[in-house]
Structure formats: structure tokens, C-alpha cells
């Protein structure tokens, strides 16, 4: 991992309260793998104090993209950044999705909820290169939460959308959308990123259906590189359930190792 305190913002797009920033950082771009994240400092003074974590959404030769939704003060400041501004980042962090174990001929799918779609574009691209075409289930509250649909399609990644209010695509939860496709196109392996309730539900489905799956977990992070012990989730390691730092041992874990309902 690297500290790049003067990475330049070279691109910016926005859709409502969703934003995409392209950040020039050749050395971080070079090392990044899908599922990894970066920590960004959103202000130079003491407020907001901590860096904020964001998945790597895409990677070009010299740049990485992040895609985020405004959630509070830090993301609002980030959204206000302009092309040409400098950006203080640490990355790439965490372990990313495990792709080496995919056996030939296996089918893969991914479920992304809201901003949780972020890492799945990088993932889809890499899987494409590796010869595993990814199908994406993309859910949101309403149609405005799905600005990336076209981007996936343009890349040749099939996307099925759902909205809670039915304004676009399947009317209902993305988990139900996924279930509705299960009989016809059951994936051998699933990648998941989204809000906790969605991940919990999919975790149960995957266990019941015996679909192996990787989840990208979220947590409030103090540092992002293993120093603060703030980001723990209960994870089974060699049989023992322990509070495990998701920034270092994750953020991606396999279904069977994740213990939900922290207790």
C-alpha cells in the first residue's frame, strides 16, 4: 500500500447525489485488484478528521476511479472537488475478491445495492479478461439510484435492475430479483456488495442454495490499514469466530466465514 498525498483529480461525473472521480495515481493503479479500496482525506484540517474508504470502481493505466454517494460531510466535500484538485489517498488496501480459484466453465454473477455497485465494474472487467462473463443484479430505492446501468451494458456486462419503488426494472428488492432468476440462470459463484440487510439476506440464500459467494463488507474505518482495530466484523478463522479487521483481512470474505448479527 502506498500513500499518495497529491494525486490529481483528472475526471469527474455526477448523477444526482452519486459521483464518479477519476484520480491519477499510477503506482496505486498498477497494483489494484477488484474489491480493494482506498482511503481518502476529505479535508486538510481537523474536520472531518478521519479518511473515508471507497472501493476501487475502475482502473486504467495511470488512474483509478471511485464511485460514491453523498452520505455525510466527508462525501459532500469529496463531491465538491473539481478536476485539477489534489486528493490525498492511501491504497490499494485490503485483499479484494479471490478470482484464482474460479474453475473454467463456471458461471459468475454479482449483486450490487446502491453505492455497493462500485467495486463490481472493476470486477466485471477483470472477469471478462479472465474469460468469465459476469451477470450483474443491480438494485436501488428508485431509478435515480441506478446511474451505472448503461455503463455496464456498454462494456458488454449484462445487468438486471430492480427498484424498491418500481420506477425502473423489477419492482422489489434486488434479492428477490436475484431469486427470480435463480431457477433459470443459477450462478456457480456470486459476488455481493451492498447494505448490510441485503448482504445478510443473500448470505442466507447462498448458504441454503449452496452457492459459493464472496461479500465485500463495510464498517466505519479509523485507518484502513490494520492499525486501529476499529473495523471489526465477526469472522470464522480456522473454525474460531473472532472480531476480525475487515480492512486487513477483508473487506471481502466468503459466506461461510461471515457471522452476521454481531454477537
Amino acid at each position, binding site marked *: 500500500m502506498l500513500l499518495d498525498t497529491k494525486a490529481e483529480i483528472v475526471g469527474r461525473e455526477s448523477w444526482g447525489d452519486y459521483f464518479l472521480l477519476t484520480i491519477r495515481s499510477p503506482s496505486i493503479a498498477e497494483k489494484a485488484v477488484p474489491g480493494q479500496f482506498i482511503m481518502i*482525506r476529505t479535508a486538510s484540517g481537523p474536520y472531518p478528521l478521519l479518511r473515508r474508504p471507497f472501493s476501487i470502481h475502475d482502473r486504467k493505466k495511470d488512474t483509478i476511479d471511485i464511485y460514491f454517494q453523498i452520505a455525510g460531510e466527508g462525501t459532500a466535500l469529496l463531491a465538491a472537488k473539481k478536476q485539477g484538485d489534489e486528493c490525498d489517498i492511501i491504497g490499494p488496501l485490503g485483499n479484494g475478491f479471490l478470482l484464482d480459484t474460479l474453475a473454467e466453465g463456471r458461471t459468475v454473477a454479482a449483486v450490487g445495492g446502491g453505492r455497493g455497485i462500485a467495486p463490481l465494474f472493476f470486477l466485471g472487467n477483470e472477469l471478462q479478461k479472465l474469460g468469465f462473463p459476469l451477470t450483474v443484479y443491480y438494485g436501488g430505492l428508485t431509478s435515480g439510484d441506478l446511474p451505472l446501468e448503461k455503463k455496464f451494458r456498454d462494456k458488454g456486462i449484462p445487468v438486471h435492475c430492480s427498484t424498491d419503488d418500481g420506477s425502473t426494472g423489477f419492482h422489489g428488492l434486488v434479492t428477490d430479483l436475484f431469486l427470480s432468476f435463480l431457477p433459470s440462470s443459477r450462478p456457480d459463484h456470486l459476488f455481493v456488495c451492498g447494505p448490510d440487510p441485503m448482504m445478510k439476506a443473500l448470505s442466507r440464500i447462498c448458504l441454503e442454495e449452496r452457492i459459493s459467494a464472496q461479500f465485500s463488507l463495510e464498517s466505519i474505518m479509523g485507518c484502513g490499514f490494520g492499525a486501529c482495530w476499529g473495523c471489526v466484523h465477526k469472522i470464522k478463522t480456522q473454525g474460531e469466530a473472532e472480531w476480525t479487521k475487515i480492512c486487513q483481512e477483508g473487506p471481502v470474505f466468503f459466506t461461510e466465514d461471515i457471522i452476521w448479527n454481531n454477537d
Partner: protein
Amino acid sequence: MTDTPDLSVELGFLRLKNPILAASGTFGCGLEFTPFIDLNELGGFVVKGLYFEPRSGNPPPRLVETAAGLINAIGLQGIGVKHFTETILPQLKDLQTAVLVNICGESEEEYVRVADYLNGHEGIAAYELNISCPNVREGGRCPAQNAESTYSLVRRVKQMSARPILTKLTPNVTDITLIARSAEEAGSDAVCLVNTFLAMAIDIHTRRPKLANIYGGLSGPAIKPIALRMVHQTAAVLSIPVIGMGGIMSAADVVEFLLAGASAVQVGTANFIQPDILPQIVEDLRRFLVKNNIKQITDLVGGIKSP
């Protein structure tokens, strides 16, 4: 002016190449920072608090950010002293910097047991007695809130310790000087202050505390003015060195603590935000000394003038 100024500090029991230490619990065991910095540039670092046995810590959420502050309730999750000496300590042995171990205990006996165990291992410069963690006991209480418990605990550990003892104090007290004096009388070689302030935050939508532990410890720039006052009060009445901390984010902050009477400082939360901050502070301090034509950093210690 062409001489490089002398940054070293002599604590009496320990010489540091510079007064900048990393604070316990914010620096892992040091190795987490090697991707960013050369540990040998530090005056030293204090490893994360250790109990005798491994400890699972508090459930999450463990962190919440506040205005210029961070509340943590990690609850001293840790690997225990055996695992530490077996897997971590050997990796630190070639460092040219002071490695201090932060010692915790549920009881006086446990502190003694941890120190006793560590006595048998090389590569540790001193013990920092963490008698001030707010995240372990009910309601955030700790021995450092009481002069008698402080005295008794420090004395017991001092009597059996093969190494110098630094006592880490809590700011959650009426009169920090009383507790600091007890530690000194009990034989502590230095005091370190401050640990975190007991604090909380509430999610107004769920109506639940934002920390699973309800209370946690507040650190970061928000607390600096209170910590600095306590260091100033304490340094005025003790003969042993005072190691100051609380919200340090820059060399200017360090100079404030030194002027207030600290012989050295620790930097905590800032390491999370800027993982290369410690060598940067050392470098900025050096520049400050050169610019102000100060030959040795110890000239700053206690150098506050009257208003």
C-alpha cells in the same frame, strides 16, 4: 546556524533520539507502519495494550467520529503477552528506536504477571502502565481515577519490574496533579498523559448509542487544549518527566506540549489520518529549531513564559 540541532532527549532512565513517540493503540505493533515510514526515525513507539491472555475486545461499532475528535471503544482486543513475545517482539529486535510495551490488567496481579513475563524477554525499553483505559470496566472507571489505587498498583509493578515504568494517566479526574504525584511517590519513572476522555454519541434515528459499548474514549484535536492544560499543571509539580499527548497533529502542537513542560510527546489518532506523520513531525521540528536558532530541543521543555 549550519549545525543540525540536537533533537535527543534524556529522560534519565531512557535516552530518545527525538521526543516523538507513537501512542499505544494507535500504532499497532509498529509493523503496520513500515509500508509508510522507517520506524528508526522515531524517538520510539508504544505497542498496543497487552493483557496476559488474548482478549476479544468490544463488539462493533467501535468508532465514531465527532467534531475534530474520534471516540473509540476497541476494548483492548489483543493477542496476549505470549503471542506477542513469540511472534512480534523478534521482528522488532533490530530496530534502532525505543520499543515500549503498554501493559494492562484486570487486577494488580495481572499487571504484575504481564511485567514478570516480559522481564524475561529482550528488546523492550520500558513499560507503560495503562491504568487509564476507559473502555474496559463498567461506566469507564479505571485505577488512575484514584490516588490510592494508582499508588498501590505502580508500587507493586515497580518493585518487580526489570525495566523503567511509565504510568499512563486518565484525564477523567478532578485533579490530575494528585494522581501524578501518587505515581511519582510510588516510584514511577515518568508519567504519560492523557489517555482518552470518556465520551458518547447517540444516533437520533435509531435512538441507540453509536458505540456498542455505549461509552468510549475521545481523542484527537478536540481534546488538545484540555490535555495541554493537564500537562502544564502536572509538569509544574513533578520531578519525574512528563510525556504529553492528546490531539497532536503537527510539530507546532509538539512545541506547545514541550513548552508546557513535557519532556517528550506521543502522537496517537494522527497516525490513522496521516500514516507518515511521525517522521514529518520530526523533520518539521528540526526546521523549527533551525529557524529559531535553538541548539537543542530540550531548551524548549518547560519554556513557557508568563503571559
